[in-house]
């Protein structure tokens, strides 16, 4: 194993700039690591060794001429399989898109290509990003590199596991209800859900348009800031894209790294604790809150009463949007087509194809969404959920009148065993209790490793939330916390060690 894979993306960027290594060398080092451990971890659905090495060689040639495109030019990255990539399959973890090779790149993919980051491959996920464990992937689950019989979180368990297992220094994820942050928490990595609209969704196969956001998955807060600034910014191809420039995140992470939080007001969310929250998670969380106080932050308790209804509102809004979004998988223009015997109509073909191509969780949510949008139920369910959304936004506003950032545990428990919640959808949904409110309100959030549980030795995450477009606050406070806690993830703690 090459020691190069242990470095952070920022360290790799520095090593490339100093001429101490080449992109080909470090891309090969990560490909070797993937070859050694991904049989056990299954973080990747597709590995593109040839493409990554050719992009790495091009990067080295540019750098030799003094033409590096970006600080991260030459640093390899993994991409969640929900983002379209020209020439590379994009399955969204679903059989209905098996073998589909998109004719266009997602804007975020274009941005990382234009900056020269070699793409190692596409990472595993719950089918169409529906789930909290990657067990809903049609291609088999990803395993948590800390303990292979545990879930890596979801839906972006592949991206988080790849980064945690040192198979990639950076990855892209997407977060609709916690799909970046919860995998980050249970794998001891950093995950950020940016402000809604600040990173383009063009080429992100939509789960729920009003909730989805692309974001960074890394091992350090600074690495997330570097990647976040690279992928952020206005995109005319996304009509929900904000025009506010995405800047100041790297500076904020570096400022936070000094460990001084004097004058920062932090609110502990009263509603995200108590029953349903594992004592070992709460113990680590409380330690993090004490550390914030020691760093000079002014910590108070804040109440956001509507958050208790966030999960119910989310599981009406999300199915409603996804039942509409996934209607496009109709077996007519791309994807799986199953033709029943006889002389089937287009409708018969659609029904057979969608039954064969979608897994259980996708079917559950499409049917639930179809129900919620039915006339007669619309006002009672979807209409109410939209009103709860308003109340949650108001709770955030009131909270941010009192404090600069909010803090909670990211996930109610550490990584649970594979299979433990597979037949109990509601128990699976509870994993996202703390992460869902930010998606409903469009606010940014980060999960930072808080330490490991005293009970099972598995990582615990702490979540920070900031007002819309104030993502920089997450990086400042997150980096300060990370520095004071010290490294949580190390290769020797993993079941897939050296």
């Amino acid at each position, binding site marked *: 194993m090459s020691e190069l894979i242990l470095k952070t993306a920022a360290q790799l960027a520095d090593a490339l700039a100093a001429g101490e290594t080449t992109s080909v060398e470090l891309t090969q080092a990560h490909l070797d690591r993937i070859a050694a451990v991904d049989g056990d971890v299954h973080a990747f659905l597709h590995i593109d060794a040839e493409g990554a090495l050719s992009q790495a060689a091009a990067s080295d040639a540019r750098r030799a001429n003094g033409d590096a495109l970006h600080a991260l030019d030459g640093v390899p990255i993994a991409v969640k399989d929900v983002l379209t990539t020209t020439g590379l399959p994009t399955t969204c973890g679903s059989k209905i898109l098996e073998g589909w090779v998109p004719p*266009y790149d997602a804007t975020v993919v274009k941005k990382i290509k234009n900056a020269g980051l070699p793409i190692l491959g596409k990472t595993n996920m719950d089918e169409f990003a529906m789930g909290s464990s990657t067990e809903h992937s049609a291609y088999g689950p990803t395993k948590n590199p800390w303990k292979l019989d545990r879930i890596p979180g979801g839906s972006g368990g592949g991206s988080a596991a790849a980064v945690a297992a040192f198979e990639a220094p950076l990855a892209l994820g997407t977060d609709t209800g916690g799909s970046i942050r919860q995998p980050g928490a249970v794998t001891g990595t950093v995950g950020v859900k940016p402000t809604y609209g600040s990173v383009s969704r063009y080429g992100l196969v939509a789960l729920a348009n009003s909730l989805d956001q692309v974001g960074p998955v890394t091992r350090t807060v600074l690495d997330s800031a570097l990647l976040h600034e690279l992928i952020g910014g206005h995109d005319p191809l996304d009509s929900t894209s904000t025009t506010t420039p995405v800047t100041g995140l790297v500076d904020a992470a570096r400022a936070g790294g000094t460990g001084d939080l004097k004058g920062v007001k932090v609110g502990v969310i009263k509603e995200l604790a108590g029953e349903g929250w594992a004592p070992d998670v709460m113990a680590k969380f409380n330690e993090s809150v004490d550390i914030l106080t020691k760093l000079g932050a002014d910590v108070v308790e804040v109440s956001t009463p509507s958050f208790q209804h966030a999960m119910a509102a989310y*599981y009406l809004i999300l199915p409603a949007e996804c039942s509409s979004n996934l*209607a496009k998988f109709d077996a007519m*223009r791309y994807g799986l087509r199953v033709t029943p015997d006889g002389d089937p109509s287009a409708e018969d073909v659609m029904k057979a194809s969608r*039954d064969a191509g979608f897994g259980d969780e996708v*079917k559950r949510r499409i049917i639930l969404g179809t129900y919620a949008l039915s006339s007669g139920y619309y006002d009672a369910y979807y209409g109410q959920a939209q*009103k709860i959304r308003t109340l949650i936004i108001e709770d955030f506003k009131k909270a941010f009148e009192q404090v600069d950032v909010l803090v909670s545990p990211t996930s109610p428990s550490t990584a649970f065993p594979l299979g433990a919640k597979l037949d109990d959808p509601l128990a699976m949904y509870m994993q996202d209790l703390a992460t869902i409110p930010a998606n409903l309100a469009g606010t940014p959030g980060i999960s930072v490793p808080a330490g490991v549980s005293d009970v099972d030795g598995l990582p615990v995450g702490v979540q920070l939330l900031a007002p819309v477009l104030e993502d920089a606050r997450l990086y400042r406070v997150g980096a300060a916390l990370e520095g004071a806690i010290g490294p949580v993830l190390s290769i020797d703690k993993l079941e897939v060690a050296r």
Partner: protein
Amino acid sequence: MPEITRDEVAHLADLARIDLSDAELDHLAPQLQVILESVASIQGLAGDDVPATSHPLPLTNVFREDVVTPCLTPEQALSGAPSVEEQRFAVPRILGDEQ
């Protein structure tokens, strides 16, 4: 308490164009009932004075100049098609005999 029967799930699956098998209906209907009971807790929580939010950003429609920009070639657009004929998507019949 809201109820979602096996027959209703079958009807919804039909509307959503998913050909669920009997075994799937047996499996999914009770799970959907549990989920629905849980989310039904929000019924009546917010009154008429609370406006609905459909989207986290206060958006209005976005327009661009009406100029030609590069787009997919027919070959690219058809590259993932299950069936192609004469540079078009080939699909099963969409009308019944009586139509």
